[in-house]
């Protein structure tokens, strides 16, 4: 049985990587045709890059999940519908910016899909305590989680390659956690599909990026990760693994004095001089993870992305330790 599960995981990764390599390239052509280009702000000059590469990831994730999922049940439907709905909200934002206050409300909608399909178990595994019974609060936390995680992952997608380098360790380590907890087969297939999609996307998004993920990409990844954690019963793993992104989102919101669009920010957290990123000496500028990582002097963009990946690897490893503690309770 375990060998069969591993076979499903490896086939899922292989199929979705190949599909993503094709689909992301097609989404780049589509973005050029629709003039959906974004300025690469950390490059000298006015470099414009296609910004909906995440659409290709959404296609490769969905197609792989439908092809390899053992059955078409409520679990598979949840793993498909929640991330795709979140990605659709992101795609609409890639066309036209959403109101910064309305956006978190919309991003909570994928959580309602999980509640409507009744595919959650309100007994999360908590360190030193074991399974807690949260029948009343869990659905509320679930809806909030989709919104918070979407914003958190979006806030980390700021330099070339950072979305993939941040997400790959989390999704990769969630697979052994799912296997250990005996998560349902569709969850394993979905995790493998997302991992492969991220690997294929990274080929085009690594420095110097040929495409950005866009809100469609970051929303897909975040909603998929929340769905895996909820359906697989490892919510605490995701909370710990996402610590760098959640901390980033929290300090950004706090230092900007509330929910604001990026375009409303007058002072930039970092300065870009000769293609190198450096900490803005103005202390009143918003605080971000990139600003914190560039306090040692000017750094290039690929190094910042690498550092974000290392922080994600650390937090994901700590998340595995947390699950081991929780499991023993």
């Amino acid at each position, binding site marked *: 049985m375990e060998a069969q599960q591993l076979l499903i995981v490896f086939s899922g990764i292989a199929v979705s990587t190949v599909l993503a390599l094709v689909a992301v390239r097609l989404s780049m052509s589509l973005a050029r045709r629709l003039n959906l280009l974004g300025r690469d702000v950390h490059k000298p000059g006015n470099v414009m890059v296609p910004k909906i590469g995440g659409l290709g990831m959404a296609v490769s994730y969905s197609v792989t999940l439908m092809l390899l999922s053992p059955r078409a049940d409520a679990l598979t439907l949840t793993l498909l519908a929640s991330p795709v709905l979140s990605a659709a909200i992101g795609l609409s934002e890639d066309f036209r910016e959403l109101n910064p206050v309305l956006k978190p409300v919309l991003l909570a909608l994928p959580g309602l899909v999980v509640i409507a399909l009744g595919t959650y178990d309100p007994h999360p595994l908590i360190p030193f305590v074991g399974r807690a019974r949260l029948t009343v609060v869990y659905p509320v936390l679930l809806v909030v989680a989709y919104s918070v995680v979407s914003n958190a992952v979006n806030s980390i997608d700021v330099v070339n390659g950072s979305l993939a380098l941040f997400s790959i360790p989390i999704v990769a380590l969630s697979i052994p956690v799912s296997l250990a907890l005996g998560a349902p087969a569709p969850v394993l297939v979905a995790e493998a599909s997302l991992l492969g999609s991220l690997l294929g996307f990274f080929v085009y998004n690594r420095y110097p990026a040929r495409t950005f993920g866009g809100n469609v990409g970051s929303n897909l990844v975040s909603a998929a990760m929340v769905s895996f954690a909820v359906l697989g019963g490892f919510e605490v793993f995701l909370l710990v693994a996402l610590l760098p992104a959640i901390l980033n989102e929290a300090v950004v919101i706090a230092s900007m004095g509330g929910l604001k669009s990026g375009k409303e920010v007058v002072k930039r957290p970092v300065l870009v001089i000769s293609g190198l990123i450096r900490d803005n000496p103005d202390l009143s500028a918003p605080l971000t993870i990139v600003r914190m990582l560039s306090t040692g002097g000017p*750094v290039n963009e690929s190094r910042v992305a690498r550092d974000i990946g290392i922080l994600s690897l650390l937090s994901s490893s700590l998340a595995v330790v947390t699950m081991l503690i929780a499991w023993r309770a």
Partner: protein
Amino acid sequence: MMALSSPLLKMMALILVVWLSLVAVLASVGLIVSATGQEAGTFVGLFRLLAALVLFAVWALWTLMLVQFWYLRVLRR
């Protein structure tokens, strides 16, 4: 192999500190709410829930202050 930068090491230390505090808070929150199953719908259950939320909010506020402190006093030194 690329050397790890000083800000990265300091950020890794920050993540470790926040993780340790988070595990402690999660365990406390879990202990506080774990009995609510038997007391669902009662005032005791509601107060347990409120206490857990307040504890988590205090931790979140402390973490925000810690990150600001880390940036100003640890990373920028």
